[in-house]
């Protein structure tokens, strides 16, 4: 293909140098902005900058810190994966936090799923003051976590616990239970608060899924002689599965990375028995100043969560 030759006009000749360069620049910019793909990228750019600044930069920074021997306020030198190896091989508290994270997440998500389905089925029924009740159910989800957990802290307080007071008055216990001072009870307490807080999210989302189920399916099942349990098992549950998968996925991620509830209630105690990744990372990295080790603890969540997500999506055969 031959190239067409265009003569280059000399400066000062007609049409060159006489026109306002600013206007020409604006015209070029205008023409550029008229192109949809250019404008599209430009409009997405602020979001990309924000994501890079608020997600990618801290993540890469944490990754770098975890590969050094930094302490707060002082740069460290590169030590490779020494922090990770040391945590897994020699740190008993970290291993406890690892176990706790799975126990906390597994138990809380299962309980929230079961109770969430029950609550959604209840809310789907024809009730008086339905809208008010549905609104009230959302309250634990709406109140700031730190604030509501403080309320629970008082309820679990060794001296003033209203739960102990009630159980004692009912004669169900004979001495005060140390809700936050006994490892198993403390773990039970933090799971309870997490369930209380996360239940509305499950119930309302599952309710939306329930409402979307075609009533004719129930009528058909009923005419085939299916009882209440059979209808739930063969109609409701299979049709709720996509909704459940999404809710469980979100909840697993949020519960695994929980911080507020454990920090306010127990600060990881007693004897580190309720530490999760986030609370241990905070204690080691920020409170004790061993920021490299703290970053490594926090980043342990990173490979685990995608694995959980992949496993769950694979199991549910969702192509998200």
């Amino acid at each position, binding site marked *: 293909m031959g190239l067409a030759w265009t003569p280059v006009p000399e400066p000062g000749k007609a049409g060159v140098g006489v026109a306002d360069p600013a206007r020409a620049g604006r015209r070029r910019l205008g023409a550029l902005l008229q192109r949809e793909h250019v404008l599209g990228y430009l409009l997405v750019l602020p979001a990309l900058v924000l994501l890079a600044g608020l997600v990618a930069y801290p993540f890469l920074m944490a990754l770098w810190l975890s590969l050094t021997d930094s302490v*707060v306020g002082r740069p460290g030198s590169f030590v490779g994966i020494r922090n990770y190896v040391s945590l897994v091989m020699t740190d008993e508290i970290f291993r406890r936090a690892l176990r706790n994270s799975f126990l906390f997440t597994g138990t809380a998500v299962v309980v929230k799923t079961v109770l969430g389905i029950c609550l959604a089925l209840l809310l789907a029924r024809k009730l008086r003051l339905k809208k008010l009740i549905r609104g009230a159910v959302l309250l634990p989800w709406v109140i700031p976590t730190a604030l509501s957990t403080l309320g629970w802290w008082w309820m679990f307080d060794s001296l003033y616990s209203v739960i102990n007071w009630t159980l004692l008055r009912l004669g169900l216990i004979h001495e005060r239970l140390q809700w936050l001072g006994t490892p198993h009870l403390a773990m039970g307490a933090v799971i309870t608060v997490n369930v209380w807080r996360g239940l509305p999210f499950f119930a309302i989302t599952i309710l939306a899924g329930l409402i979307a189920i075609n009533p004719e399916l129930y009528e058909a099942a009923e005419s085939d002689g299916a009882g209440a349990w059979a209808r739930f098992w063969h109609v409701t549950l299979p049709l709720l599965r996509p909704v459940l998968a999404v809710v469980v996925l979100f909840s697993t991620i949020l519960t695994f990375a929980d911080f507020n509830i454990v920090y306010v209630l127990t600060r990881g105690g*007693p004897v580190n028995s309720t530490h999760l990744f986030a609370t241990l990372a905070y204690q080691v990295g920020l409170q004790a100043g061993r920021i*490299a080790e703290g970053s490594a603890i926090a980043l342990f969540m990173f490979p685990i969560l995608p694995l959980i997500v992949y496993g769950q999506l694979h199991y549910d055969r969702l192509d998200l």
Partner: protein
Amino acid sequence: MNPITRREFVNHAATGAAGLAGILLSRTPPAFGQKREVTMLGWSHFVPESDKKLKELVDKFSKEAGVTARADHVPNVQLAAKQAAEVQTHAGHDLMMFYNEQGWRHRDSLVDLDDVVGELTKKYGGDIYPFCKDAFFMNGHWKVLESAWPAVPGNYLQSKFREVGEGPPDTWADLLRAGKKLKKIGSPVGIQISHCFDAGSTFWSVCWSYGAKVTEADGKTIAISSPKMAEVIEYYKELYASAMEPDVLSWDDSGNNRCINAGHCAWIHNPVSPYAVAVARKLPIADDLNHHSTPGGPAGRFFAPNARGYGIWKFSKNVDLAKDLLRFLYREDNFSEWIQASAGFNHPMWRSWEKHPVWNSDPKLKLLPAEGAFGRMRGWPAPPGDVFGAIDDLHILPDMLAKAIGGMPTKDATAWATDQVKRVLDTTRS
């Protein structure tokens, strides 16, 4: 109103973004936003009147100096994280509070305060409590100006001790004897064995009194697995089983305060904040509450004061103004008012302030200044440094006790603590 065109929107957004980027890159606010401002961050005082007085003094400074000054507060357990966040980002307050050895951790990021401390020492005398110097004088320079070292006496309910025929305990052994009787009448002893500062304070006191230590004087050789430490653990186990209630495993720093002010606990090891709060709020328990010197043991009488003070970040843009604020707060009249408001909780590092009337106005506070003789920096006899701050922040020592109380053999509990302290020594640079 004319609708904005796409081109105008893009132009305005680009101009705004460029302006914001310029401000962020140059880290200089626009001229109309500039104002001389100095800010300080400290803990939320256990005697709230002290924070009120501080605010009053800071407001007074604002007016006198014609600047904006502000004192912010966070719970003491959050202070270390705030320090870390500010020093990592090089942004935040000008003045920051540091506890015990926290200042050592950040010493490279702190301005020398030799000039301010020098001026004040000329005025208040050179006799300074050694533990304050250990905490705040680093490698030949004052990095933190002490604002308070609270004595940690025994706080006890006189009526309960009378009821069981005991006087205020002089030693930890006396406390155990009295505690057994007190628990039987439903008024236990309360010492935290949990993730909080007070748990560490009392541990050090008992540890030193029995002649135990965490490291040798070199600060490097771990000395936890010793017969004396075993004695300390056995003491705690017996005290827990026969004189305390399991609550202590979950208490925070205010747990023991609430227990004695509720009239439930008969004895706690704490600064005088429960009494100060009881007096300020006119609680009837104030008449019954009294104090006695921190208990002693076979090796002597000791306690670990939570000494705290303010340092100035090197990244502060108002170093001179921040120093002026310190000079103002430590001016004799202002400082005196601040101590008075804290009801004797805030003890200065200069011994000359022992003559302040607050400690003579109330016979229940009279013993406090003399307690300074028993104070040691955490980690003693090891030299001061940031290692023991980390040990404290990780709650290793209270966890060692809790493990033993929970049934772990004493030998295993000390081995666990040795391993944890070794990790700190390996990963924390002094």
